[in-house]
């Protein structure tokens, strides 16, 4: 239950699991220590089969599991100015960036895509904690704005998966300015009458929580995710007392009225489909693993479910 087991090890595991080298067929659950076969683990969406501990998912893994048939179109994110402050700590910021890009194989800490979930077209954005702690800088801001603009343009809901230690310190004040910038993006969705659903994953902290990650119409969290503004260590240092068990975890926030739901990863996709379809006036969805939509073909109209009659015409399936 310490920082090493909660954060460092899963991070290392997720880095290694990407390469799928034969010597890395097994990984150990950081929570209960069970050895998990890699295929079994990935089929279970990186949730421990023994204790249900939710390990990190990269945006690609998440989108593969989320979209019908694992098919989605990536949305381009406008490239921000590199190293806007010419920031240098013990390393130069561009060197840290290159190292993160090499380790993750990703250009930055957020992936934005469009596709269908249960034949329901949506825009989705997912933050990558393995890329510099998912930190929010100009790129993440641009990604959220691009996602919102696409959603507005095509009249689609936006689902956002957050995971971040907070702001990207190496972009100084400009990382702080992503709080208002991403808030403008959320306002675009609200004004267009489009659902904005936030799924908070472990961990979501700092300036990210204090902006777009807390402004969803519906707030869902994965079990045991750490969600906070100030981290537990900072608070313990400030108030000089031990914090209660489970403090700032998803269930604790649910209890304190800060979330709508805490949902197991295996149920998340279905739940998102259900919510999105109700908020956008569509009929109940067809369940199950759907193949990718045929390219060029109109998405099929929703067949009414066998037992429950649907009052409204289900034709308004998709506007994409």
């Amino acid at each position: 239950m310490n920082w090493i087991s909660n954060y460092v090890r899963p991070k290392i595991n997720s880095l290694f699991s990407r390469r799928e080298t034969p010597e890395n067929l097994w990984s150990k659950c950081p929570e209960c220590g069970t050895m998990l076969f890699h295929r079994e683990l990935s089929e279970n969406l990186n949730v421990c089969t023994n204790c249900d501990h939710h390990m990190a998912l990269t945006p690609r893994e998440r989108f593969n599991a989320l979209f019908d048939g694992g098919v989605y179109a990536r949305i381009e994110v406008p490239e921000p100015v590199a190293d806007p402050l010419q920031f240098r700590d013990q390393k130069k910021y561009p060197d840290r960036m290159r190292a993160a890009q090499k380790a993750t194989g990703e250009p930055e800490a957020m992936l934005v895509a469009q596709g269908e979930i249960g034949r329901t077209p949506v825009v989705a954005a997912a933050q990558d904690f393995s890329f510099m702690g998912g930190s929010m800088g100009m790129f993440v801001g641009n990604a959220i704005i691009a996602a919102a603009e696409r959603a507005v343009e095509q009249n689609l809901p936006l689902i956002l998966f957050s995971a971040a230690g907070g702001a990207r310190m190496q972009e100084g004040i400009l990382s702080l300015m992503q709080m208002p910038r991403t808030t403008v993006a959320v306002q675009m969705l609200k004004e267009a009458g489009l659902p904005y659903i936030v799924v908070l994953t472990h961990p979501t902290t700092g300036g990210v929580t204090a902006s777009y990650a807390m402004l969803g119409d519906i707030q869902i969290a994965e079990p045991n995710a750490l969600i906070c503004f100030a981290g537990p260590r900072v608070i313990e240092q400030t108030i000089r007392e031990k914090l209660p068990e489970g403090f700032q975890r998803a269930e604790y926030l649910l209890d304190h009225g800060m979330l709508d739901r805490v949902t197991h990863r295996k149920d998340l996709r279905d739940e998102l489909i259900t919510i999105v379809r109700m908020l956008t006036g569509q009929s109940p969805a067809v369940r199950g693993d759907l193949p990718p939509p045929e390219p060029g073909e109109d998405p099929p109209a929703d067949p009414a479910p066998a037992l429950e009659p649907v009052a409204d015409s289900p034709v308004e399936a998709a506007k994409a």
Partner: protein
Amino acid sequence: MTHYLEFEKPLAEIEGKAEELRALARANEEMDVEQEAAALDQKAADMLKDLYKTLSPWRKCQVARHPERPHCIDYIEALFTEYTPLAGDRNFADDHAVVGGLARLNDRAAMVIGHEKGNDTKTRIERNFGMARPEGYRKAIRLMDIADRFNIPVITLVDTPGAYPGKGAEERGQSEAIARSTEKCLSIGVPLISVIIGEGGSGGAVALATANRVAMLEHSIYSVISPEGCASILWKDAEKMREAAEALRLTAQDLSRLGVVDRIIPEPMGGAQRGRSETIANVGKTIAALLDDLSAKDRGTLIKDRRKKFLAMGSKGLAA
């Protein structure tokens, strides 16, 4: 008794000597020390000028946090008439770290809101050192709402080390409160002017500073994280705050180059603490000028311009 900052110690010595000489002369009428004392005064004035000509970012942090710097209530009392404080968030409490209410600036009604740090041990504790809890931001939201409904411009005075990292603050939704306050700043159809008068500490500052125009006192700071915090994370050594202050670009001058700050308000030689009334007057003049500038704009334009400004922010880096 003047409070000298660490880097002002040599100055303290000279000014102390001049003071001693004069005290001696008062006790002994035959002594004529005026010439000598005047020379010391001159030396002190030269040194002060020299010290403040080029303040390093870390020294600016110290000046920005100077205990004798004018605080929010000092500005309100000196610049506004008919100040009528309004209290409470209507949910839980009245947060004394955020003050605000109706007031007149040159006879025009305004809603003034700001962080108050307090001036002595008692008031500092009462004000929680200017670190607001969720109730503070929710009070600010409420006051901005009133201003919006009755078409009254909003003026915010920012001076906080950051939002309070406490147990109750987290439980009651610190991050949500900050996010909503930023969102409110971006939604109101009245002029919103923000002045950073001391410390602009991260999300706790942004929540009040997402304004049409942001002005900053010459030696104030505005940053995503305190230099000490940044140093302990990136340098793993809190003593590297000088380097961190440098790297973060948190001075008014750098922020103006980055396009984050619209105007720098000059401080008297030796900082606001050495010329409180002059500083307050300068701030008053700037607020009045910025208000004049915005008063012709209609509601829609004010909202649109504010959002556009933040969306465009950071697109050029230091080349802005």
